[in-house]
Every structure is written in structure tokens, then in C-alpha cells.
């Protein structure tokens, strides 16, 4: 089942459990599980889109993959090797291959550093090339992301949000990574700029053959950018399928509700969003059993209690978190 050879990145049963402490003595009062038993695969040169609302755990997952945080259990395989507990020099070498682009472009760039210094930083840290070689590479990268030549001497505050995101992308490309994790990277941008950046990302992927893990809360954007789409809810992946399939044939109740809520930009088709009672529950004390079933008060919710919900492939390429209340039988 697990073909470790073919996939670039594979996650198996990943869990991130964060103890929640409160009170004067900071005693552990609960556990937050931003990532709860997630298994995913990203083939080389392809994009896996991860869509989920706030609190679904996407950012935590992204950080774990880039190894900015340590998972509590489960495994991450990169290029066939287990990188879950890697440290020190091996971790440094790994960082060359997995990069991240953050949501807020302006705050991910040190305002006191010039653009040239910012893009050069990864090269300096990884001790790649000599001074003049690095600077040449920086110029090349900036040109690739369609920024003007004189941008090297300027500072982030002189650029708009979209341009700052280009700088961040140039920086992520500096080490020639195989996988880039994009955490909400186009979410804060205006529509026209968003489109430009998405085009740029697609272009770069085609040219360099990188894989992307593209995360957002905007389903349309994710669908547009991805080969495969995985839907996350409260730390679990509830459904995963090729982009077109998940749009045409959503199986999980949450996916259906999500899709129906995306505003359709055609005034001629009035949509009827599936009404959901209640709000997204807190990740602190998630209800037992199927969290979504609990939220919508599904009649078959009780059946899900106490069960380990399996994540299965119902049709080739289409995975579902099987649960009596949410998925089809």
C-alpha cells in the first residue's frame, strides 16, 4: 500500500498534540489536537491542496512538515526517508529541499533588511556559493518573479503586498527546493494580484517541477491550484480526491456543506447554501466521535462514538473518512 519510492512527501498517521495549560500553576487541563492522525501523499511535481477553515489545523500541519515544530507521533517521509525526528546537520540539509511561503508577506520579511539581503539570506545560511555568486543568483531570482532589477536595494515597505509576496517566493526558490508549502499565501491579496501570483506559481511549478502543498480557506483558489484536494476539519482530513472529482462528487457531508457555502460569482444561479447550525467547535475539547456529526446534530451521530473512523479509498484516488453520519454507506 505504501509505495515509499514514488512519492515525494508522505505523511503517515501524523499527530500533533499540544497540552493546554491553565490556572496559576499552569497545570495541564486538556489537550489540543490541531493535527489528529493525518495521512497524505504528495507526488513529485504535483500540488496537493489543503482546504479548511480556521481551526482546522492546516497551519500546524504545514509547520510540522517544514519541521518548524515537532509532531507528537506519526511519521513524515521525504524522498523515501523518515524525517520525523531528524536534527542538526541533517535537518539543515533537509531545509534546502522544503521551503515555506507564509500568509502575511509583509511580516515574513524583516523590515530592516533590503530585498537583496532578504533573498540572499537562505543562501548565506546554507553557505551556498561566494558573495558575488549569491548576488548574481538573487538578481536572477528577482527577475524570475517579475520584480524590477533595482528592487535589490529597496526595502519591503516600498512594495505592495503582492510584490512582497513575490519577494517571499523568490526567497523560497533560492535553495531550489523540491517542495514548497504555501500557507494561505494568496489569501490576503486583492483579486487581481492573487491571480497574478497564482499564475506565477503555476509557471514556476511547470518550469522547475516542484511540488506544492497549497493551503487556504478559499475552496475556489485551492481547487484552481491543485491536482489533488484534501478537506480538513478539526485536525482530520475528511475527504481527499482529485480536484475536479471533489467538486463534482463530494461524498462527505462537510465537503458538501463547504462547497455550497462558496459564493457563486454568477448572479443567475442562486445557490442555496446548506445551513449549518452552531459554530466550529473549539479544538480544545473536541466532541467524541465525529466532530462534524455533533455539530449538525446528525441522527446517526451516536453510532460514531467510540469508533476509530477509518480513512479509506472508496474509489481509486478518492479517499474518505468513513463515518456513519457524514459519509455515504
Amino acid at each position: 500500500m505504501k509505495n515509499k519510492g514514488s512519492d515525494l512527501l508522505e505523511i503517515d498517521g501524523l499527530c500533533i498534540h499540544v497540552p493546554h495549560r491553565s490556572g496559576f500553576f499552569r497545570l495541564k487541563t486538556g489537550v489540543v489536537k490541531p493535527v489528529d492522525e493525518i495521512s497524505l501523499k504528495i507526488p513529485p511535481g504535483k500540488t496537493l491542496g489543503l482546504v479548511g477553515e480556521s481551526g482546522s489545523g492546516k497551519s500546524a500541519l504545514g509547520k510540522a512538515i517544514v519541521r518548524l515544530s515537532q509532531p507528537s507521533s506519526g511519521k513524515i517521509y521525504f524522498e523515501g526517508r523518515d524525517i520525523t525526528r531528524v536534527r542538526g546537520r541533517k535537518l539543515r540539509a533537509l531545509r534546502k529541499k522544503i521551503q515555506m511561503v507564509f500568509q502575511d508577506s509583509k511580516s515574513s520579511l524583516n523590515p530592516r533588511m533590503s530585498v537583496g539581503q532578504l533573498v540572499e539570506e537562505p543562501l548565506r545560511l546554507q553557505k551556498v556559493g561566494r558573495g558575488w555568486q549569491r548576488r548574481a543568483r538573487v538578481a536572477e531570482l528577482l527577475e524570475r518573479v517579475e520584480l524590477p532589477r533595482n528592487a535589490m536595494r529597496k526595502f519591503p515597505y516600498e512594495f505592495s503586498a503582492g510584490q512582497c509576496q513575490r519577494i517571499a517566493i523568490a526567497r523560497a526558490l533560492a535553495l531550489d527546493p523540491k517542495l514548497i508549502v504555501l500557507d494561505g499565501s494568496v489569501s490576503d491579496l486583492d483579486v487581481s494580484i492573487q491571480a497574478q501570483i497564482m499564475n506565477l506559481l503555476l509557471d514556476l511549478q511547470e518550469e522547475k517541477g516542484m511540488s506544492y502543498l497549497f493551503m487556504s480557506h478559499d475552496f475556489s483558489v485551492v481547487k484552481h491550484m491543485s491536482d489533488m484536494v484534501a478537506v480538513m476539519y478539526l485536525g482530520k482530513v475528511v475527504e481527499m480526491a482529485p480536484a475536479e472529482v471533489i467538486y463534482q462528487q463530494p461524498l462527505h457531508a462537510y465537503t458538501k456543506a463547504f462547497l455550497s457555502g462558496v459564493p457563486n460569482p454568477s448572479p443567475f444561479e442562486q445557490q442555496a447554501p446548506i445551513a449549518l447550525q452552531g459554530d466550529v467547535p473549539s479544538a480544545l475539547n473536541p466532541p467524541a466521535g465525529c466532530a462534524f456529526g455533533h455539530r449538525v446534530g446528525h441522527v446517526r451521530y451516536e453510532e460514531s462514538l467510540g469508533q476509530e473512523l477509518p480513512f479509506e479509498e472508496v474509489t481509486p484516488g478518492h479517499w474518505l473518512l468513513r463515518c456513519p453520519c457524514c459519509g455515504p454507506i
Partner: protein
Amino acid sequence: MSDLLDVRGLVTSFDTASGWIRAVDDVSLIVGKGKTVGLVGESGCGKTVTAMSILDLLEKPAGHILEGEILFKGEDLRKVSAKRMREVRGGEIGVVFQDSREILNPSHRIGKQLINAIRLHRKISRKQAKMRALELLDAVGIPDPRRMLVSFPYQLSDGMRQRVMIANALSCDPDLLIADEPAMSLDVTVQAQILDLIDSLKEKFEMGVLLITHDLGVVAQHCDDVVVMYAGRIVEHGSTRRVYSDPKHAYSKGLLFSMPRLTNVCKHYFQTIPGHPIANENLVSGCRFCQRMDRDKSVLLRTRPEYLEVWGDHWVEVCPECYKG
């Protein structure tokens, strides 16, 4: 006159480090009773400033309304006394802001804030105000209104807080509701609920709604008319169906094309609007979209294009380059 709100030639200017800048440059729009008008545009185009100007909530001393008339039910809000303006604000025009966390006072219970808001505009007793508050909370779909009254803002989720804000805005039966990105920071599932709520309340209370958003999909689903703003000016306006099916201005076209849609083919390139937004101080007096598109014709950049009705109630800024027949 069925026009609730009739803004004519509004010009709002700010005093910045680089001099006076017109954030809103000759904007006119009409909101009729029972209609939702969507004011759409990207960040920095001046839509929020327009709303703040209507309500006279500009940051002083920097912001000034230079010209224009703001006719609300026939009364020019620029000419009324401060007292009357206070009555209008909240009493006849309800406002829903973007970030509920900053609007609600974190140290007061919801009930207290609601009741105070109600009693500010109506001379009724506390008990009656409380009854009204409960009614409102129920109308906005809050499951346990009594419990909500004694809760604090921090105890609520974003969706709930936004509902409370809407309840607050509706507390005095306003005739006009101005909603500035009411569902922006909310999750998609909650967003749909909130917007539908506004729609149903609009029908129930017979209000006019001015919905400010950057999301073209929201406008398509919830607005009868749409006003497209760019760089402080209106470039196109008309009924939503007309403008969406046949956008006339290059900017509107560009916006509609560069929206990612679920119906799009995956991993397909967009038709985008090139260039990036130009800072306010560098905007020309002529066609600003031509400036963004980097069109060299100095004539276009100097003379402001006219704003004409090109079809039945479909108006466009007729710049020779941006509007082509």
C-alpha cells in the same frame, strides 16, 4: 422618493505626509428601499472611506469631506446638526463593521451594550429595552438569547459576535443598513449564514442595504445592484446581472476574469490585470486604470473620462482605452 440614500458627487480628502489626497473622488450612488447595493473594489479603492463619509465617521483631523451631497430620505447629511447626525447614526442608519472584536467593548456584557444602544435612540424603559434586545437576538438566529445577554464578547465565537453586531445595528429599526465587509473574517460556512441573514432581515424590515465587499461572488449572490470602484472613483455601476454578464469597463472585466471559480479548469492560467496598485499619492487626474496598465498616452492620463449611461441604467466611465463600445 423611494431612494433612501442618494450620494451625489462625494469628494473626501485626507491630509497625509505627502499632501492632500482624494480618497474618494466624485462618487455618486443610490440605494433604494428594499434593495441591496454592492460596493465592490480592491483594497485602497475608497469603499470604506465612502461609507465612513456617509456616516461622518472619518478620522479627524485628517479626513475631510470636500464636496458633495449625501441625501438620506431627502435630508442632506452634510448640512445637519451634530445632534441630528447622532440620531441618524444608529437610529436610522445601522452599521455593521468588519471586525466585531474591536467594535464590541470587551469589558461589558452583551446585554448591557445592546440595551444601552437601544435606549440611546428610543425613550423606553430598561425592561422594554431588554425585551427588544431579546427579540433582536432571536431574529438574528442566536440559539439562547437570555444566555447571550449576560455573556461577554470574548466568550463568543466570531460568527456569534457578528450576529450580535447585526442585532446591534438593527436595534432601532433602521431604514438603511451599511455593512462593511460583514463576513470577511468568518469561515465560509458561517459567512453564508450571515449574508443570508442580512437578506432575510432586509425583506422583513424593508430596509435598504449598502454592502461593501471585495468578494465578487458575494455580490453576485446577494446584491441587486453593483458599484465597481477603482482608485477612489466609480468605473462602472448597474444591476448585478447586467454588469456581470456584460462588463463594459476593462477593470470590471479584468476583475471578473481573474476570480478563481469552482467551475474553472484546474491549473489553468488566469487572464490577469497586470501591474500592481499605485500608491494614493501618485495617482493621476486622468484615467487611473490606464495608469495601472502603464499606457503611455499622456492625454488619457490628464483628462478625467466622463461617466455616462451606456445602456439602460448601466453606467461606465468612458475612457477611450478602457471602454470600447
